[in-house]
């Protein structure tokens, strides 16, 4: 964010690859433009000195009561419980033999 270097079209392609998204020729420049606009707007966070401010991932972290205090209690006991029906889960899959999900070949040659 420092110096606010522009997002290039190569950056967009690299991030799309990380996200497993295939972008079209039209989508790439549009996303580059949008990303630069949004990150330009996000850059104002740099106005704030956040030295020694702890990052907050969950609301529970800042509360003395509720989720944080009970963090230990919130975990379920490790007991086998009935789960969703396997046949129904497999039935929702695009391709399956009833026991496993089938996918195209994994290793590219």
């Amino acid at each position, binding site marked *: 964010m420092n110096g606010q270097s522009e997002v290039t079209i190569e950056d967009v392609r690299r991030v799309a690859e990380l996200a497993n998204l295939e972008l079209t020729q039209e989508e790439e420049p549009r996303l580059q433009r949008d990303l630069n606009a949004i990150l330009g707007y996000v850059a104002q966070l740099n106005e704030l000195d956040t030295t020694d401010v702890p990052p907050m991932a969950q609301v529970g972290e800042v509360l003395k*009561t509720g989720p944080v205090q009970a963090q230990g209690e919130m975990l379920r006991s490790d007991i086998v419980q009935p789960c969703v029906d396997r046949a129904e889960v497999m039935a929702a899959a695009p391709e399956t033999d009833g026991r496993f999900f089938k996918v195209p070949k994994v290793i590219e040659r």
Partner: protein
Amino acid sequence: MKEEGLKSLTIDQVRDAIAGGRTTATALAEMHYDRIASEDKEIHSYLSLSRERALSQAARIDAMAQRGDVLPPLAGVPIGIKDVLVMHGAPATASSLILKGYRPPYDATAVTRLEEAGAVLLGKLNCDEFAMGSSNENSAYGAVRNPRALDRVPGGSSGGSAAAVAAGFAVATLGTDTGGSIRQPAAFCGVVGVLPTYGRVSRYGLIAFASSLDRVGPFTKNVKDAARMLEVLAGRDAMDATSSDTPVGGYVAALEQPVEGLRIGVPEEYFGEGLDPQIRAAVEKALDLLKAMGCVIKPVSLPHTKYAVPTYYVIATAEASSNLSRFDGVRFGLRDSEAKTLADMYRRTRDGGFGAEVKRRIILGTYALSAGYYDAYYKKAQQVRTLLTRDFLSAFAGVDVLVAPVTPTPAFRLGEKTDDPVKMYLEDIYSVAASLAGICGMSVPCGQTQDGLPIGVQILGQHFGEESMLRVAKAVETSQG
């Protein structure tokens, strides 16, 4: 009961009418389905109807009534569910093509709780794709129109949920709110919408957008119905480790307590430049009426407010990019069948299945989490989230609730903001800070513009402070007459 009367039908009226034998749950469900069939073509609030399940539940309630059993709190109440919450065997699209045809094998906890309380679940409601949007224009199945002004958006992302209540297509609905997606559409459509405290209502069975922000909450026609719904929905659920075991309040009973002496903070940052003068006037009038009822009105400051939107769009998109990686064509929904390799299948499925806004957010979130940018964006935003939360905690040291506008403008026209993501994101300027801090909030109607567009006032409560919030909401509602 006439069909037009459905528009103002409330939970108490439904229960009383069924218990008194003046109507049946089945008749009410059918009347709602008739109204949806004739009127929802224009509004487009429902994506699918769960008629069989609804009518079998209605028959169960009718049998109870006939036997003279004590009816559960939502007996026979027709309710619609936002299509990001799953119902066993019913379509669950999240308004995305990538989940077209998917029928989940289980019920969301919120769905189970409503049904156990007697509710009749009519069907699934349109929304922005994966709840990403502020206008409901990002639905892959088409936009929703605002029942109060058909050329306007209903708000988003729970646009269908708000519109269905406003149009009388359900007595109440469920929505979800990640950055304002319950409060803003409630304000735009002139209904009541509640964002419960993070952890108050289970998220099990909610198709995740941003897990540290996502919340499930009700849309209703009045404050008492909202309190009733919340009582049913709230509570610890073993299936959601972030759900809280903080005792559930008597929300309906709390409405009986007068608001006299309650301290109301007015955050100056929420009344700055860009606020529509008619909204400002309506909110200030609501504050005057609260003062007349004995509330103590105090100015407060939430100094980091202007950083809430940029903070939100880093955190929410980062979490979304991670959550949405599960949509890969392997286990459910769409799969590109042309692909020859696994990697190719992932990419082509996701490219064909996700809409433009979802891709934009996945790209932004992935960028913010990628090597070399994590500290600058994601960690920085998490630190500012702490500052924003501290703002609220200090304000609540001196006041019981905060009162502010919900949105800077009333409902805008379809297509008005779709070209500029930053402009659309600024729609959330008064709602995202509460989302980041995890506090509760709600929108209550407080008047309308000269053009007849609804105006909502936002009431924000402390963590698990739903009772005070609802009491003030009730007072606002009463003062509106």
